[in-house]
C-alpha cells in the first residue's frame, strides 16, 4: 500500500556502494548495542568511534584500491587494532619505497613561483588526506579531489540515513 519506490539509482555508483556497505555495518553495530549501557560518555565515545570507523571503512572499501588514499586508509584500519610492531616495519617499507617521490617534494617547496605552492600548506594537506605523506604535489592534489568527492558522498549518505532513522 505504502510502496515507496525510490528513484532509480545507479547501482554501481560510489554513493550506492557506500550506502549498502555502511548500512550493513551499522546493522552489525546495532546488533552489538544492548550489551553495554550507553549512558556514560566513554561508552558513547566508543560507539561513536566504532561508527566512524565503519563509515571510513565502508568508504574505503567502496573505492577499493583504485586510489592511494583508500589504500592508505584500508591499511591503517587493518593494522590499527593489531600489534604495533607490524606498523613500524611497514611504515619504514612504505617510506623507502616512496623516497624518490620525496625528492620531488623537497625540490618543490619553493614559494613565489606562480605555479608552485608553498611546502607548508602542502604538508598540512598531506596530513589530512590519508596516505598523502609520500606523494608529490601533483598527485596529492589529485587524491585530494577524489577524497573530497568521496567525503561529500559519505556526508550526504550519512545525513540521509540519520534523517530517515532518527525520528
Amino acid at each position: 500500500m505504502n510502496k515507496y519506490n525510490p528513484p532509480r539509482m545507479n547501482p554501481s555508483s560510489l554513493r550506492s556502494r557506500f550506502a549498502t556497505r555502511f548500512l550493513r555495518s551499522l546493522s552489525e553495530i546495532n546488533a552489538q548495542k544492548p550489551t553495554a549501557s550507553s549512558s556514560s560518555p566513554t561508552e558513547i565515545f566508543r560507539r561513536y568511534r566504532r561508527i566512524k570507523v565503519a563509515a571510513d571503512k565502508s568508504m574505503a572499501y567502496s573505492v577499493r584500491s583504485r586510489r592511494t588514499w583508500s589504500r592508505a586508509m584500508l591499511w591503517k584500519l587493518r593494522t590499527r587494532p593489531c600489534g604495533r610492531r607490524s606498523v613500524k616495519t611497514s611504515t619504514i617499507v612504505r617510506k623507502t619505497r616512496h623516497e624518490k617521490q620525496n625528492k620531488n617534494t623537497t625540490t618543490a617547496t619553493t614559494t613565489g613561483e606562480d605555479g608552485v605552492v608553498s611546502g607548508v600548506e602542502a604538508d598540512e594537506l598531506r596530513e589530512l588526506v590519508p596516505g598523502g605523506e609520500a606523494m608529490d604535489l601533483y598527485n596529492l592534489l589529485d587524491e585530494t579531489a577524489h577524497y573530497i568527492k568521496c567525503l561529500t558522498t559519505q556526508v550526504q549518505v550519512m545525513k540521509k540515513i540519520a534523517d530517515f532513522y532518527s525520528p
Partner: protein
Amino acid sequence: MQPACSREMQAMDSLLNPTHHLPLQDLQIHGHPPPQFDNPTPSHDDFLEQMLSTASFPLSSSSWSDIDDNAFPQGGDGGSNPFQAMKMMMMMQQQLLVAGGPSAAATGGTHQGGGEGSNSITSMQALFNGFGDGSFSHPQPSFGADSKTDINQSQGPAATTAAPEKPKQKVRARRGQATDPHSIAERLRRVRIAERMKALQELVPNANKTDKASMLDEIIDYVKFLQLQVKVLSMSRLGGAAAVAPLVADMPSEGGGDCVQTSANGGGVSLPRNSNGDQPSSANDSLTVTEHQVAKLMEEDMGSAMQYLQGKGLCLMPISLATAISTANSHSRSPMINHVNPNNGANGNHLLLQSSGGGGDGPSSPSMSVLTVQSATLGNGGVDGAASVSKP
C-alpha cells in the same frame, strides 16, 4: 615589417603555448598545433631542406638573395598563414644577420657595427653548425623566431642585428622557454598543477581563486570541515540518545548551511559575554574560540567535549530548532537572546555557536528545556533534522 612579424610571432606563441605536449621544440614546426596550419609537415620538410641547402652554400649575399627570392613568394602566398609568415621571418632575420655581417666586415668601422658583425658572423656560423647537426634542426627555426622576437622586443625596432648571446643561440628554443629538460618539465608540472587546482576549485564551495596559497588554505579547511562533519554525523547515530546526558546534534539539511549550532541554557555564563558593547562581533569572537575548542575536543574525546560544553552551559542543537526556540521565546525574553546569523559568507562552512541568554534564572531554564523538547517534537514534522536535546 618587423613589428608585424613580431605580432605574428606572438600570435604563434600564444597558439603554440597552450598545447601540453612534451617535446615543445618539435611542436614548433611539426604538425602538433596543426589545426591552425594547413600542410605544415610538407612545408616543414621544404623549409628544412632549404635551410640545409643554404647551409652548404658559402656565406655570400647571393645565396641569401636567392633565399630571399624563394622566401618572399612563399611568404606572399601564405601571407595569412602564420607558419609561412614565420618562415619568412626566419629568412628575413637571417638575411639581416648576414647583411649586418658583410657590411660590418666591409666597413670594419664602428665598434658597434664591428661587434654586430662579429656577432652575426659567429651567429651564422653557429646557425650553420646547428643545421649541419641534424639533432638541432628542430630548435633552429624556433631559435630564429625566438631571437627575432627578442630582438624586436628587447632592442626595439632598431635594425641592430646583434644576436643576444652568441654561444647560447644554438640551444635557445623559444621565447620564454628553454630546451633545458628540467625547466620544461618544471613548466609542464606547473601547468598540470594549475589544472588540478582549477578542478579542486570547483569542488570546494568557496571558489574565489585569488591565488594558489589561499586556494590551498580553502581546500584544507574544507577537508577538515568534511571530516568533522563525518565525525559529528557518526555521533548522531547513537540513536535514542534523548536520555543521555551529553548530546547529540544532527545536521539540518535546510538552510543551505551545514552548521552545528549550540545554544546556551545557563544564563550566568553567557550573560557577561553578551553584554559586551559590540554584541555581534564580540560574541562572534568568543564563540569562534569556543567552537574551535569544541571541535578540537570532539576529535579527541567526545566525553571531554561534552563536559567542556556543559561547563560553558552549552548544548548542541540544530539551527532550525534554535530558531524555533527563539521565535517561541521572543515575546518573553527577547532582550537576552543573541543570535549569530549562521549563513553569513565567512562562517558558512564553520561551526556555529549561538547563545540565547537564559537570564540566569533557575526556574526559567527547566521551562526552556521543556520548550526545546516540545519544539523538537513539534518541529520535526516539518524539519528534516532530528535532534535530541537534553538539559545538561
